[in-house]
Each structure stands twice: as structure tokens, then as C-alpha cells.
């Protein structure tokens, strides 16, 4: 935690915030942890901000509220700042990020039925991995397997497509992809509307605990180091509030740092579970935060300490190369290539490593002992 003299030191380093009261949006997800922790542990207060957290129901709402100014800043899926800047789903608006809040945090869950079929194929010795078995099963099945994610331009869609492609399954032809609201994911699995999904937590854990789903692959294995959630603001908001933005990033980076300490995991899960935040049992949140995801018979049975990553190895720095990769993967999904210079320009506009460096420079000056 910051010491008492922080206010004075901070105010010497960073000019006053242009705006003191900020409304910040997040979705009901385990990796909203940095926002919730910063609020509950007073990290926003410590940087001189009065933050009101707003739980939103969709990424579309987050986008519209950032653009209209109803929200000052928000949690966002990593591909979104670039894709909204491009205007890929209609509304075009320059959105940028100066802070990555987490890496990984996703998994692929199959329905019990499909999992049973795939296991049987493995038992019969026809193949060794779930993915190969799924490939064989998909070929035998008269209709296409249906998978769901929560947003078209999400890390989840990109991970799912990457995973399937690696197993020789063409994500454009061999399966059907749907978007389903997170709250309906497990139901859709149960009713057979979908055969599997790739989502963030707690929706894999909930699927497994309800007995409806089996986790078969982890985001951390499919795309190691993939940025997951970022802090998004509109470019015009950033221009008008550079100091408030900097202070906000400082508080959230501190929260990420706090979350990376495994001694804090239980407390983080407890705070997240509160009725004013995720409002669900701690048991839904702990497995992924501790990296002990329930994987009955999946490919991985050891614990996964990097299931969620919030801090370390410079992961909080918006990465140009990863952003370019995400934009290219989204273009593939759209079925139309985006000009190389356009991709680079989109990445440069939306992914602001310079803002991250500004944040760490202040943080290092404040806490000399910290290594970033």
C-alpha cells in the first residue's frame, strides 16, 4: 500500500486531475477484479479520485456510454479499442487504451454430451487429444457443431478459432459460431442450443459446477501472453482529462500489482463476490483466481498458476505487435482483409504504450522498492 506521504509526492509529480468524480464501467466478470479491488482497498482515493463503479450489461453499452460521455472510462475486451476505432460493428469512434489489466483468463468448455462422445473416441484409441477427437466427431455428425462466445470481437472468438484451426477444424466452415449473453451460456449448453463455448470466468467454472460442461482447453495454452482486458477511454476524453486518466491508470496498476500476490487471492475473491459487485458465491470465483480450475479429465490436470495474470513481465503495457495480431485475426473473422498500413495505424492509435510508460515512471518514483 502507499504510505501516508503519497498525496504530497503524487501531487508534486502529477498535476491535479481535470475531473475528480469519475464513472467507470465494468462487466460481471472475475477479471473485473482490478476495478473492484482499487475501489474497496481505497486505491482510487489514494490518487485523489472519487470513482463510482457501474456494472454494465453489454460491451455495446460500454462503447456507447464511453462515446456519449456517460462513462469516463471502462473495462474492455482487448480487441475492442481498435475494432471500435475501425467501426467494425457500425459505430465508429476513436477509443484507446494506455493500460492492459490482465492476460489470459479464458477457457473452452464442451457440453457433457460432446465431451462423452469425444472421450469415447479417445478410449477407442483412434486419437490422443480432445481436439483430434472433436475433429473426428464433427465429421461423423450430420450437422455442424455450434460454439458460442460473448462477443464477436473478443479474445474468446479469436482463441476458439485458433484452437479449432490447430486441430484441423475450419472455424469458418466446419462449425457454427454464435454470440450468447454470458448469463445464458450454461442454459444454452444444457438445452443443446450450443455444443461448447469459449468465455472468461466465472462462466467456465459455473458450467463445470452445474455438471453441464467440461473444460477442455485453456486460453493461457492456446495463446500464451494474450492481452485480455484493458482500460478503455475515448480519445477525446483522454485529450480533455490527461491527468485524471493518469491517476486512474496509477490506481488500477496498483490494484493489478496487489492482485498478483497469491496471499491476496482469497480476499480478492471475497471482495468480488459481494452483492454490490459480482453478487455470487466465492466458490464460483476462487478456482480460476487460484489457478485450480476444475478440469475433470481435461488435457490439463495440474494447477494453472497463470490462468489469470494481472501483473508482471510488463504485461500491463499495451503491446503494438499483439494489437496488430488481434486486428488481423478480427479481419479474418470479418472475411475482408484490412490494408497493412491501416492495421498499423489502427494499432498505433488505439494502443498507447507511451501512456503506460508515463504511469510506471510515476509509480516507480512513488514506490522505489517496486520492480515493474
Amino acid at each position, binding site marked *: 500500500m502507499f504510505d501516508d506521504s503519497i498525496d504530497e509526492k503524487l501531487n508534486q509529480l502529477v498535476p491535479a486531475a481535470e475531473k475528480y468524480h469519475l464513472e467507470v464501467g465494468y462487466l460481471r466478470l472475475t477479471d473485473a477484479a482490478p476495478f473492484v479491488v482499487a475501489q474497496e482497498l481505497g486505491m482510487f482515493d489514494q490518487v485523489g479520485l472519487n470513482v463510482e463503479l457501474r456494472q454494465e*450489461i453489454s460491451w455495446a453499452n460500454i462503447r*456507447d456510454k464511453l462515446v456519449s460521455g*456517460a462513462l469516463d472510462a471502462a473495462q474492455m475486451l482487448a480487441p475492442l479499442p481498435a475494432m471500435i476505432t475501425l467501426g467494425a*460493428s457500425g459505430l465508429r469512434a476513436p477509443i484507446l487504451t494506455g493500460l492492459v489489466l490482465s492476460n489470459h483468463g479464458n477457457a473452452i468448455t464442451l457440453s457433457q454430451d460432446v465431451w462423452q462422445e469425444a472421450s469415447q473416441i479417445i478410449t477407442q484409441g483412434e486419437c490422443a487429444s480432445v481436439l483430434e477427437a472433436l475433429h473426428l466427431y464433427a465429421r461423423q455428425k450430420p450437422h455442424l457443431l455450434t460454439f458460442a462466445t460473448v462477443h*464477436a470481437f473478443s479474445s474468446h472468438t479469436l482463441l476458439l478459432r485458433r484452437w479449432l484451426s490447430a486441430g484441423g477444424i475450419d472455424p469458418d466452415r466446419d462449425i457454427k459460431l454464435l454470440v450468447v449473453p454470458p448469463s445464458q451460456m450454461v442454459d444454452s449448453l444444457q438445452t443443446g442450443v450450443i455444443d461448447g463455448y469459449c468465455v472468461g470466468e466465472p462462466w467456465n467454472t459455473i458450467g463445470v459446477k452445474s455438471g453441464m460442461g467440461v473444460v477442455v482447453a485453456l486460453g493461457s495454452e492456446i495463446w500464451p501472453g494474450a492481452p485480455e482486458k484493458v482500460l478503455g477511454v475515448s480519445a477525446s476524453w483522454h485529450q480533455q482529462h490527461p491527468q485524471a486518466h493518469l491517476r486512474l491508470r496509477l490506481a488500477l496498476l496498483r490494484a493489478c500489482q496487489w492482485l498478483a500476490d497469491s496471499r491476496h487471492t482469497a480476499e480478492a475473491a471475497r471482495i468480488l463476490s459481494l452483492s454490490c459487485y459480482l453478487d455470487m458465491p466465492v466458490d464460483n470465483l476462487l478456482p480460476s483466481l487460484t489457478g485450480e480450475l476444475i478440469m475433470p479429465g481435461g488435457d490439463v490436470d495440474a494447477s494453472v498458476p497463470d490462468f489469470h495474470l494481472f501483473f508482471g513481465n510488463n504485461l500491463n503495457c499495451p503491446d503494438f505487435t499483439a494489437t496488430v495480431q488481434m486486428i488481423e485475426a478480427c479481419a479474418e473473422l470479418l472475411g475482408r482483409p484490412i490494408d497493412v498500413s491501416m492495421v498499423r495505424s489502427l494499432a498505433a492509435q488505439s494502443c498507447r504504450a507511451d501512456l503506460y510508460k508515463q504511469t510506471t515512471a510515476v509509480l516507480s518514483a512513488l514506490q522505489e522498492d517496486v520492480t515493474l
Partner: protein
Amino acid sequence: MVESNESQAALRVMLIDDDPKRARWVQNSLREFGFDTCSIVAEPARMLKEISEHAPDVIIIDMESPGRDLLESLSVLAAHQPTPVVMFSEEEDPDYISRAVAAGVSTYLVGGIEPAKVRPIIEVALAQFRNFQGLRQALDDTRSELSARRTIDQAKLRVMQALNIDEQQAYEHMRKEAMNAGVRLATLARQIMETSTN
């Protein structure tokens, strides 16, 4: 403001709203202006089926519906199908997004229909969502006003009994206390009720 003519009347409007009261209210208003609603969807789970069945030209959706990301994904994932595209007319109406967010409603145009054509429908929907919000707020205000008055009466009774004074004196006593503490009378009344029940 709105001229109803053949081309507008023929537009197919779908309403996605899980609040049946508001949906009816918006539907009625649209009808008054000559626009018929082809379908009202309460559950996002039924959204896809309804869209393919009714083939709407314009979709009006409650912003708090969990189905918005699904709706927007159709323009990306559902090839060869009419795809809803979020209404965003920066050129004609730079405040549109702010007005939509404030009213809590979002509009999607399907199958490349011209924004100008659906403009009147959107204006009605925006106005009615906003009015409904206003109505609800007024109702909430009335409710909290009533409950505040009830609490003040109860607290007055407590003070009358505790200090053995009459109603007028109890009221004066509370008013002074509230003024000294710099709180509203209703707040003080609630505090009295909370402390005296413990």
C-alpha cells in the same frame, strides 16, 4: 413532427424489451404515429428466431437488454443474412448517441435501410423511452415521499411517548434537532426509528 405516409407505414419495426409495460407504451405511441410493431421480444434467447421470422427493417432495443452484443454480432458472424447495424449518424445528428444513452434505448437498421427513412420512428422511440423513465422516476419520487412522511409520523409518535409531549411539541423538537444536525427531517426521523428499535 411526423408525417405518416405509405413508405413509413410499411416499415417493419421490432421492439426488444423485457419490460412489458414499457414495450406496450412504446408500441402504442408508435401506432399513434402510424408505425406498426411487427414483433415484441422479451427474451434475448428468442431474438434470433424472431428476427428471421419477421425480417424487421429496424430494431429498437432496450439498452439494458443482455442481447445487444448478440444483435451486433450478426453483422459479423451471420453471413448471407440481413444484418442489423447500429444506428449512428454523426453527420446529421452529433448528439444522437448521447440522446439514445440518456433515453436508454438503442436502434439498429437492418438490410441497408436508409437512416433518414427510420428517423421518425427513432424519434418516437427515444421520446417514449425517455418519458417512460420520467414516469417511473415520478412514481419512485412519490413513493419515497410517502414513505418519508410515514417515517416522520412514526418518529413523532416515538418522541411524544419518550418525552411525554404533544404532537406539535414533538414536531418542533425534531425540526430543531434536524436543523442542528444539518440533516433533512426525514433522515432524522429514520435515525430515530433505527436507534429506538435497537
